[in-house]
């Protein structure tokens, strides 16, 4: 039996780097202290905020919701709304929705469940089928990521949030970092910061309070607080995901060389200021169709919708009309139409 380094009770966690052991009580204290410190260090929240917590109902997001709800007791001017994006993945999402609803209802926390079906026009399952039928070249996770972000922004604006908190943990961040190095996407690397805010374009500030938290710690926090049951629920589309392989590789590296993931996080933090001003990561436009901030004149979500036949005819007419006198827009639309076998989309 391993004992806690602080009180001799049975340990539930040994930090692989410091080798300190923590019992349940001391682990929870350690975890919350780390998250509070991260939030302070990066100036994530002010005294008066309406925080939208992007909650999937999984371990990370319920841990985030739990700790923010706990902290809000000491910050009376914080309002919290949990937002769950229901992509419509049969046999998967229903189960995590239940976790959130149960959690929020017991504690009286306002929550919104926003479906792809109502906001995009189709469930993710149907989008993937339609994309395949039309010969579109995208992986399930591409649609999901783009549309999820789009719907989350929309809902956050509808509820008048001042900030969106997401539960991306250190593992997520370093995996994305490595994936973007592999694909030579430095503008995406420069966006991997703990806080994202933009003065213009109605972009709502985004924060990642778990930026320095390993996935295992946030999972353990969820389990020790009874937020989720130790059962394995996996998205059926995950096998199509590059992240799947990168994650495995990084965890094997971490086991051999404890601290490797922290090292990558530090490497990311060192490169971001160097990239500043050299790669263009800021959204310069507001999408002509939906008005969301975008790096192109029409945002990715609207381009996907167009290719899937989910954009209304008058909106397509409007952008085609604009494209007549706008070469950049015309070539963007051409690119997106030549990316599919269905040129009839346009």
């Amino acid at each position, binding site marked *: 039996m391993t004992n806690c380094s602080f009180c001799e009770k049975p340990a539930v966690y040994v930090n692989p780097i410091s080798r300190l052991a923590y019992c349940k009580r001391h682990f929870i204290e350690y975890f919350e202290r780390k998250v509070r410190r991260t939030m302070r260090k990066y100036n994530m929240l002010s005294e008066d905020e309406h925080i939208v917590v992007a909650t999937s109902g999984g371990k990370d997001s319920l841990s985030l919701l739990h700790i923010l709800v706990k902290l809000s007791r000491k910050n009376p001017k914080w309002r919290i709304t949990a937002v769950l994006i229901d992509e419509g993945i049969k046999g998967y999402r229903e189960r995590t929705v239940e976790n959130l609803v149960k959690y929020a209802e017991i504690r009286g926390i306002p929550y919104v469940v926003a479906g792809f079906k109502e906001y995009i026009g189709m469930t993710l399952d149907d989008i993937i089928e339609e994309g395949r039928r039309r010969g579109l070249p995208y992986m399930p996770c591409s649609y999901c990521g783009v549309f999820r972000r789009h719907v989350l922004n929309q809902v956050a604006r509808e509820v008048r949030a001042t900030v969106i908190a997401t539960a991306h943990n250190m593992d997520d961040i370093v995996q994305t970092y490595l994936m973007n190095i592999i694909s030579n996407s430095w503008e995406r690397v420069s966006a991997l910061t703990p806080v994202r805010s933009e003065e213009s374009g109605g972009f709502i500030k985004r924060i990642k309070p778990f930026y320095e938290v390993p996935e295992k710690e946030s*999972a353990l926090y969820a389990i020790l607080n009874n937020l989720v049951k130790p059962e394995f629920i996996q998205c059926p589309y995950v096998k199509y995901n590059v992240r799947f392989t990168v*994650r495995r590789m990084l965890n094997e590296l971490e086991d051999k060389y404890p601290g490797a993931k922290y090292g990558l996080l530090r490497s990311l933090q060192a490169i971001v200021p160097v990239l500043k001003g050299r790669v263009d990561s800021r959204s310069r436009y507001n999408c002509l169709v939906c008005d969301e901030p975008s790096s192109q004149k029409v945002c990715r979500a609207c381009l996907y919708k167009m290719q899937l036949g989910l954009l209304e005819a008058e909106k397509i007419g409007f952008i085609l009309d604009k494209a007549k006198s706008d070469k950049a827009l015309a070539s963007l639309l051409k690119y997106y139409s030549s990316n599919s076998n269905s040129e009839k989309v346009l």
Partner: protein
Amino acid sequence: MVMRVVVIRVKILETNQQVELDVKSTTVRELLLRLGLTLSEHIVFKNGEVITEDDIVEDNSEVVVFTVKSGG
């Protein structure tokens, strides 16, 4: 030769597998290694309680291995 009848039973939630290991005692770390599972992705339970990778699992015990990775 004496036949050993006591083993460590491991339930792996991710793959829904039940594995029996014929070892007298082992640390959780070695156990995961033998099963080809990484330390950073797994939490191990014994009798419903979380145990650490430094803990020792003995003959005739049952452990549950929970994979921490996010859904997708």
